[in-house]
């Protein structure tokens, strides 16, 4: 069971001049990343949450800096739209990309990316919102509807070449009230690629519960770490206590 902190990069962006040329201040995100890596993070996810504003991912400087002294896998998401985007991100020191909107809008993109670069660097990120008896896949940071069933989309993404699924519960995210374990289980049962669960962890017991139910292969958490609710070692201990295999 991997424990993966997620860093949403937004505040570091400074807009200057009338041409909206942005300059990334990389300090804060990298400080956090270094701290997490030192605390035992198994991987780190960086999400560019203002990518849609600029029509592209602009975390390259952040990643280049991070890769200088963080030697665990880095995943980058937000605004990844073309194979070239992926190549640039990987060249800057990232190991994987997380793709949501571009994949669901044109699933053939996943095939192209997997053929060119291998499935192992392609994480399909699915943001799921409860609807009726199931969940709808959303895009644009949970703001846009797709009318696609999230679990069905996960199956198609696997078929098209995704190496992993990152499944985030929009309803639970940020609440620290616990994961949507039913969502995780449905996706986990549907595919045979690794599933990373995200959204809602507020304490170590929430994470241990996911391990007990065997419904994810990794957990991706933001608030619990950023607001210091339970540091990484505490979460790992809780996982080990329920018998999950964790890297010490």
């Amino acid at each position: 069971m991997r424990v993966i902190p997620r860093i949403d990069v937004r505040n570091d962006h400074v807009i200057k001049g009338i041409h909206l040329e942005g300059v990334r201040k990389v300090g804060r995100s990298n400080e956090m990343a270094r701290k997490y890596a030192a605390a035992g993070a198994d991987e780190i996810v960086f999400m560019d949450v203002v990518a849609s504003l600029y029509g592209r991912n602009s975390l390259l400087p952040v990643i280049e800096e991070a890769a200088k002294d963080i030697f665990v896998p880095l995943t980058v998401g937000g605004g990844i739209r073309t194979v070239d985007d992926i190549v640039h991100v990987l060249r800057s020191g990232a190991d994987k990309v997380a793709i949501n909107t571009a994949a669901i809008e044109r699933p053939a993109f996943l095939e192209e990316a997997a053929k060119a670069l291998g499935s192992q660097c392609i994480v399909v990120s699915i943001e799921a919102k409860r609807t009726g008896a199931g969940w709808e896949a959303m895009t644009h940071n949970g703001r846009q509807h797709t009318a696609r069933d999230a679990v069905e989309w996960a199956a198609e993404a696997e078929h098209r070449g995704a190496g992993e699924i990152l499944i985030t519960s929009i309803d639970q995210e940020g609440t620290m009230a616990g994961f949507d374990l039913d969502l995780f289980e449905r996706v986990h049962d549907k595919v045979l690629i690794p599933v990373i669960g995200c959204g809602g962890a507020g304490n170590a017991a929430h994470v241990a519960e996911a391990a007990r139910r065997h419904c994810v292969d990794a957990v991706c958490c933001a608030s619990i770490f950023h607001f210091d609710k339970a540091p990484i070692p505490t979460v790992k201990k809780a996982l080990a206590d329920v018998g999950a295999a964790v890297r010490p």
Partner: protein
Amino acid sequence: MIAVVDYGRGNIYSIGQALNRIGAEFSVTDNAAAIADADRIVLPGVGAFGDAMAGLERRGLIGPLKAAAEKGTPLLGICLGMQMLADASEEFGEHAGLGLIPGRVRKLDRSAARETRIPNVGWRRLSPKPGDRLMDGLTPGAMVYFVHSYVPTPDDATDIAATIDFAGRPVAAVIRRDNVIGYQFHPEKSGDVGLGLLKRFVEFVA
């Protein structure tokens, strides 16, 4: 000088950062002469086998790499780079490898535990072969990071220097035939343990 082979498909930047961190001097190159002159060679690799071999072929590097290996230059293949040391791979059709460590690259086998996920992603415990000089003294329980769907299956068991457990069976994690070495995991992404294993290669005398 360590030559890190740039053939268009590999995480050169991260490997460079890791080599910097352990204080090893290197140069990134796709030049046959530089490879011939190198004291050691690192062959990175991310992506698909056939595509990667084509990348080497296009740059005329297959011959120089084989020649360097033959004359005893320590050569480390990482991840896909390790797979390329084999005779051939079945990934996306049949493709020839460098043939430096006999055996084929096959898809990971989960038949003994069908719920096992592929790709094999995450930190796994290395089981070194007792007596292997490269792995000698490795901390018991050392974990390193894997992300792969294929793995070499060397013809000669003595070429396997360490294994990990996958779906209840051992699979090659480190292979070695004299000066030719392969790490299936990413030493540049495996924290301090990984940096230590990279250092082992940098200091290894075949």
